């Protein structure tokens, strides 16, 4: 039963990533693109978690945690750049 759930999760997350990509390409404003990238990172974390369950490998957790941190820093850096014209003042 879990294998069916994992397949369902892969389908849902693939669709979600495709929708994020559409919003990332369409925009129309820079804020929309930042939202799309942020959501894309969260969905990528979910994909990594599901791959970890599929392969029964605990090591994927490290990659997911690193991606969560890097994604947050990237979002804040984009926002700071748009708000202040600089990232580290």
């Amino acid at each position, binding site marked *: *039963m879990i294998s069916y759930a*994992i397949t369902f*999760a892969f389908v849902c997350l693939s669709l*979600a990533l495709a929708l994020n990509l559409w919003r990332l390409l369409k925009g129309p404003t820079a804020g929309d693109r930042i939202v799309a990238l942020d*959501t894309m990172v969260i969905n990528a974390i979910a994909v990594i978690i599901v791959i970890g369950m599929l392969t*029964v490998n605990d090591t994927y*957790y490290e990659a997911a945690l690193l991606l969560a941190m890097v994604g947050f820093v990237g979002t*804040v850096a984009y926002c*700071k750049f748009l*708000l202040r014209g600089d990232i580290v003042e």
Partner: protein
Amino acid sequence: MSGLGILFDVIISVLIVIGASFALIGSWGMVRLPTLMERLHGPTKATTLGLGGMLVGSMLYFMLGEGQWALHELLISLFLFITAPISANMIAKVHLHELRTQGDDAVAGPAGRPAAPSDKANWATYEAPHADSVAATSES
């Protein structure tokens, strides 16, 4: 999958399915809704909740199925639940900044444009805080 009862099987499957559904609903909301302030709702709430559900499912999967102590998956949930509001706040600030700088071209949300701040205060966007306001922390 040794030692895993059918009940745990069902619980883990339901958590994974609900989490993936919420992630899809959040992304669909981001595409479907008309303005940026509404689009923020999908990713910040539905997608974060979906990932939390999937992480709890993964944690139970490793703890009950494999017999490993896998509580550290909660760290990702905790980190995301802390950072998602901060990201949303920053993106909302970017939206306010675009409303201010682009004038009439920018599309405001259903709540309309924010009221202008008083003379002493200012929005925490591009312009530096006024020298005599409470927000000014350093010499400009």
